[in-house]
């Protein structure tokens, strides 16, 4: 467990929870990032707040980069795996109505049986594929 970063994980996780909570308290909305992005693209109603939220998603790491001097992260190489993964993540979150934020954080907090089920399934499926391939 040499890569374990518990302090950053707890602080970062609390920030994620707080951001999602702000959306609930002010807009009464679930902070599902895939659902918000999907609706911003394919639904006209409510587009402005969704685009503002997504602009915030894009701006977050830029802001962090100006505050922290040693902030960097890796990105995947362009490959067929990246394309296949993107298609699977898109279609899967579309059919399953959510991702790690909407189901995993908001839905599990609400004790929604659908979200708890989805979260267990995508965790297991992700672990299976990652462990077999990496």
């Amino acid at each position, binding site marked *: 467990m040499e*890569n374990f970063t518990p302090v950053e994980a707890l602080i970062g*996780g609390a920030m994620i929870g707080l951001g999602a909570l702000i959306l609930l308290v002010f807009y009464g909305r679930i902070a599902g990032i895939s659902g918000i992005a999907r609706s911003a693209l394919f639904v006209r109603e409510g587009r402005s707040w969704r685009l503002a939220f997504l602009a915030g998603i894009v701006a977050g790491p830029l802001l962090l980069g100006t505050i922290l001097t040693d902030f960097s992260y890796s990105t*995947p190489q362009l490959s067929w795996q990246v394309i296949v993964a993107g298609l699977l993540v*898109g*279609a899967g*979150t579309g059919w*399953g*109505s959510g991702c790690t934020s909407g189901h995993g954080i908001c839905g599990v907090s609400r004790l929604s049986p659908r979200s708890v089920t989805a979260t267990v399934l995508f965790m297991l499926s992700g672990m299976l594929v990652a462990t077999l391939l990496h």
Partner: protein
Amino acid sequence: MPIIVAFIAGLLMSAGIAYSQMIDPNKVLGFLTLNANWDPSLILVMAAALAVYSSGYWLVIGKGKPVLAQSFSLPNKQGLDKPLIIGALVFGAGWGLVGYCPGPALAAVSSGSHGTLAFIAAMVAGWYISLKLGK
């Protein structure tokens, strides 16, 4: 509705994704890949997010209405169905393949990485497919 609040919500979430290093697909794969170097960090990210969100949720829900909206718009679908189960399994497979879920991929747009941008383009295509191909 003042959209600046939505911007701040997104900003906080992605700053958290970045600070916890979940923006880095290798960090996420370190959790999803069960081996000797297993990295449990993602569990603590989820635990902290759940602790903050759930305590807030149960405080505000059922009490009045949101500050900037008429009512809470929460998912009302009940019960498990095939799209949910298949969707979650398909999403998980894509997640385990590269280590990206939608939030971190979108948060990493400013990197300009071709891999990240290709993932997002394919994800948008996947959303379109799910819209057209049965629910």
